[in-house]
């Protein structure tokens, strides 16, 4: 009997075509081992519902976007290269400051560090930026091909003047 564990996620995700779905379900009926795996996977899948973000308050997005696109007075260029960078610089400074503070409060080895897959060190608590290497994050070739056609090559450089 060939197990179907490698198709469990596609099944839960609704990505199996009808033939494969029928074969999958048939196997599940006969195989307690795969059924147990599928149940556990389903449980995690449903647990994720807890992380659904609530409907955020809306209304302010349009007025801000309008000011930066159709708005008179403040041109988009001024926004990007003027006040916008001040905001971003402030955020970056605050982020670094917070990180440094936490570096003091939660030194490495305090139990919060975890090994993620792909050999990347990741943790929600204190992380060196090295885990975010270009190749792993951008899938090897970075943002090329369709990205350039659809979005323009300048997109990834947006706001990098800091």
């Amino acid at each position, binding site marked *: 009997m060939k197990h179907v564990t*490698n198709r469990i*996620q596609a099944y839960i*995700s609704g*990505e199996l075509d009808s033939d494969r779905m029928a074969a999958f379900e048939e196997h599940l009926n006969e195989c307690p081992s795969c059924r147990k795996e599928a149940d*556990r*996977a389903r*449980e*995690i*899948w449903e*647990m*994720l519902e*807890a*992380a*659904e*973000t*609530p*409907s*955020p*308050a*809306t209304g302010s*997005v349009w007025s801000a*976007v*309008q000011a930066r*696109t*159709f708005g008179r007075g403040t041109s*988009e260029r001024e926004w990007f290269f003027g006040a916008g960078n001040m*905001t971003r610089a402030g*955020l970056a400074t605050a*982020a*670094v400051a*917070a*990180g*440094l503070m*936490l570096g003091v409060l939660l030194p490495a080895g305090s139990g919060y560090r*975890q090994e*993620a*897959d792909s050999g990347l060190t*990741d943790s*929600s608590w*204190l*992380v*060196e*930026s090295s885990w*975010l290497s270009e190749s*792993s*994050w*951008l*899938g090897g070739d970075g*943002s090329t*091909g369709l*990205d350039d*056609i*659809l*979005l*323009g090559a300048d*997109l*990834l450089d*947006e706001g*990098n003047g*800091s």
Partner: protein
Amino acid sequence: MPRTMDDDALMIRTAEGEEAAFRLLVQRWERDVLSFLIHMLGSVEEAEDLVQDTFVQVFRKAGSYQAVGMFKSWLFRIAGNLARSRLRRRKVLRWVRFDPVVHDTGGAGPGPHEDLEHSQREDAVRAALSRLPGRQREALALHRFQGMRYKEVAEAMNTTVPGVESLIQRAMAALREDLGGKGDQL
């Protein structure tokens, strides 16, 4: 303007400089984009910042948009690129603890007692998500929370359907390891 106008039609009008069409697009998608960016960045404030940037980019790129019915993928590719760019700029040290007050931003909600259990579960799941490698988190957020098919996720992430499947499988395996043993506490 008819409210049922689809995204492609709105994009064509946006490219022609029609403000009302662009406004409809922003209002139609702002919540989804914000939700995705919160999952990616773990910070409501930064996410709100990038929602604006995303739509400004949509406007700037409207002229090069190809109206082939893949607006959502195109939109989330822009948002994803901006999120990655922002994450790359978190140099030296990075604080990506998913904000436990996210669920409080709506102000008045359920009382502290009935909300406590839910909020603990929510924090645990968010924290587990935040520990995923970036691309796994992105694929999972697009598929699980934005309801995008593997094909749409692949388009948004500039990869293949098997590539998306692999990312999601690995993400789920990691989450299972992370959350699986805590089922009773959650």
